[in-house]
């Protein structure tokens, strides 16, 4: 049964683990968006016509708050292109025509990165282009900065007190059990445990975190990780990933600290808990030690005909990845991310960016359209809402523009996990109402202040 008596959230079926990561060869042409994750786009530091090699910096973040962008294939920068994101924004992208040689830049290896100062390490992460994955994709350096001293944010209570980061939780499975990039990485982590350890230590050194937690799916068998945790006194926490959204940041934060963080404005990390995905930690290690930037990405593909976990260079067209997964039939819907929280896109002619952790494909016959009938008041949404809201009422407040009531009913605490819409018998697009309500409220607030 997908709804439990005693537990909020929903139960999703687990996919069979593919267990193996397939490599996708570097594409002939890579399109690299200047914006990776939320935040301002980076400023290009090269000219059209220049020849680049893998790992060479293409664009730098202007304000020092974002993450740099690096070439993912070697070749010639031929053009700036407009890239249409699924959220409606248009961002400039660099196009590299590959030379087929895949020449890599020589890494500047630093064997003892932990000696470096926290500021230096943070700068290496930023220059390495590390993006925090998960619900809010954003430059890791920026996330850490925010967690350590929240600035510029208007909190719901108006307080802007700095809180030290006390816990770092490393997630070894995707939030959405239909995605399995992280799980596949965890299964094949064997030789990378040293990297993982280093990444964790680098992060702890930057933030001064006291406790590291490994958050694993309870079905994962991870002798290497267990040993690592034992040796270093890291806490291991096993959760059932099929209990969606138990692996989302606020739920993980509660599981590791025993305290519930305020989810309003996605400020989970302000409560002194940093929840990161394992790939982010590995990238951190590489950026800190080898100064090797992020140029490729693990991606989980899930479609009616083919599924698998692939490692592909940034900028690879999604269509290539999808056909590598064996998908041939006509597709009705493309979702960037998992089925619960991913964003539908109107085309597969879109390059792989750092924020895409999976692709979910639906055949024409598999599409669930929202019917948006009136709420029948069954209350199932209140039963599953992990944030203990009353989504049925909230969606009606938003539908009929009762913004004050919506805010009183803690609209901003909603994490948009989609559990309410998943169970809604009237087929209401609950998440849409919430997102719309939030943006409406924020824009009024902005125009008022």
């Amino acid at each position, binding site marked *: 049964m997908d709804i439990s008596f005693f537990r909020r959230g929903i139960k999703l079926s687990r996919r069979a683990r593919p267990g193996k990561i397939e490599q996708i060869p570097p594409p002939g042409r890579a399109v690299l968006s200047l914006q990776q994750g939320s935040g301002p786009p980076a400023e290009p530091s090269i000219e059209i016509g220049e020849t680049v090699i893998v790992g060479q910096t293409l664009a730098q973040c202007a304000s020092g708050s974002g993450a740099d962008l690096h070439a993912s294939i070697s070749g010639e920068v031929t053009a700036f292109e407009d890239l249409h994101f699924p959220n409606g924004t248009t961002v400039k992208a660099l196009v590299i025509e590959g030379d087929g040689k895949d020449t890599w830049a020589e890494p500047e290896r630093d064997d003892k990165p932990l000696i470096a100062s926290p500021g230096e390490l943070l700068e290496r992460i930023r220059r390495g282009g590390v993006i925090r994955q998960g619900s809010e994709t954003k430059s890791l350096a920026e996330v850490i900065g925010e967690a350590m001293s929240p600035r510029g944010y208007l909190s719901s209570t108006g307080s802007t007190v700095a809180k030290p980061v006390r816990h770092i939780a490393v997630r070894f499975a995707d939030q959405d059990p239909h995605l399995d990039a992280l799980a596949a990485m965890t299964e094949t982590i064997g030789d990378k445990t040293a990297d993982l350890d280093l990444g964790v230590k680098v992060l702890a050194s930057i933030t001064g975190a006291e406790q590291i937690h490994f958050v694993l799916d309870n079905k994962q068998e991870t002798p290497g990780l267990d040993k690592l945790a034992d040796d270093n006194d890291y806490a291991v926490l096993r959760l059932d990933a099929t209990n969606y959204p138990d692996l989302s940041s606020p739920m993980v934060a509660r599981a590791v600290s025993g305290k519930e963080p305020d989810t309003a404005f996605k400020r989970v990390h302000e409560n002194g808990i940093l929840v990161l995905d394992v790939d982010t930690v590995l990238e951190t290690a590489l950026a800190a030690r080898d100064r090797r930037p992020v140029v490729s990405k693990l991606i989980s593909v899930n479609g009616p005909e083919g599924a698998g976990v692939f490692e592909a260079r940034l900028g690879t067209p999604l269509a290539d990845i999808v056909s590598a997964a064996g998908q041939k039939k006509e597709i009705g*819907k493309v979702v960037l991310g998992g089925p619960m929280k991913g964003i539908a896109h109107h085309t597969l002619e879109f390059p792989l960016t750092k924020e895409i952790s999976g692709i979910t494909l639906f055949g024409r016959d598999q599409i669930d359209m929202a019917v948006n009938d009136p709420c029948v008041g069954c209350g199932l949404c209140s039963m599953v809402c992990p944030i203990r809201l009353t989504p049925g009422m909230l969606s009606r407040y938003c539908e009929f523009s009762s913004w004050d009531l919506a805010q009183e009913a803690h609209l901003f605490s909603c994490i948009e996990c989609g559990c309410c819409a998943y169970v*809604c018998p009237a087929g209401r697009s609950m998440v849409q109402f919430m997102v719309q309500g939030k943006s409406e409220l924020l824009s009024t607030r902005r125009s008022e202040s």
Partner: protein
Amino acid sequence: MTNQRLVVSISPHIKNGRTVRRMIVTTIAALAPAALWGFYQFGLDALALVAVGITAACATEALITRLAKKRSSLGDGHAVLTGLVLALLVPAGVPFWLVIVGAVMAILVGKMPFGPLGGAPIYPALVGLLIVATSWPTEIRSYVQPTTAPVELKVEGAADAETPRDAVFIDPSDEAEYKTADLFLGKQVGPIGAISPLLLLLGGLFLILRRVARWQAPLGFLLGMGLAAGIGHALDPSGCASASFHLFTGSAMFGAFFLCTDWSSTPVTPWGMFLFGLIGGGLAVLLRIAGLPYGAVPWAIVIMSLATPIFDRITPTPFGKVASHA
């Protein structure tokens, strides 16, 4: 694979396949055993009454949607459920026209003015039932002796058969005549679908297991009735029958599992539902002790339904908020 038309919509992109129609069909299925028992006990008359009730409800809804030039809402099955619940809550001896008027009123007054589904402040079937019950108080009490009733207490001047509750109200010493097991198994006089606490309990548990209904309201209701009756019985055994007697007679079980768990007319938050049930159950016993001649449970639930917006304000503290802040 290029140039296809792809669908764009907001997350989540999967659903659990739950539809209003399926949930209503589940509810009807959960009512089926109790209804079948009623047909067995009261014969073809009962079956005919149920058929008439369902037909009248569906016809009224179809007519209204057509007149209002709206999309027909018959498909979700709610009209069927309304007619069924209404017919199951009347005794088998009522005239056909009474059930027809009740079903028409349920849809016309109780349901359609508030939108096809989801807006009704009071359970539509109860609106219909109470309209006919107040309009024809004598006819609504046309109880029929069931096939297997072991106790037949006849009170002079009463209708054809006397419900255990009426008999005990008139003479508290009659309570000893009714064996709790008989009452529980459904060997008693009463409304067509509400005489078998056992089958209603099973149906209700089925609903709860299928997550169509939640457990808070039924538990609260049964607890409320049990507590109120228990206290009343302890204080004055001749004025108030025992808790088990109250729970197993009349439409107590029916109310707990099928009326307290309605969607729009009951609260949605856990404590709201529990308190709704608890107070409703206590109120039902009070109404019975006060001698309301018919429909103590329906009335109690209707009264509580009017307070649903208040109960809906008892929301749990959201994740990460301090309790006092809410």
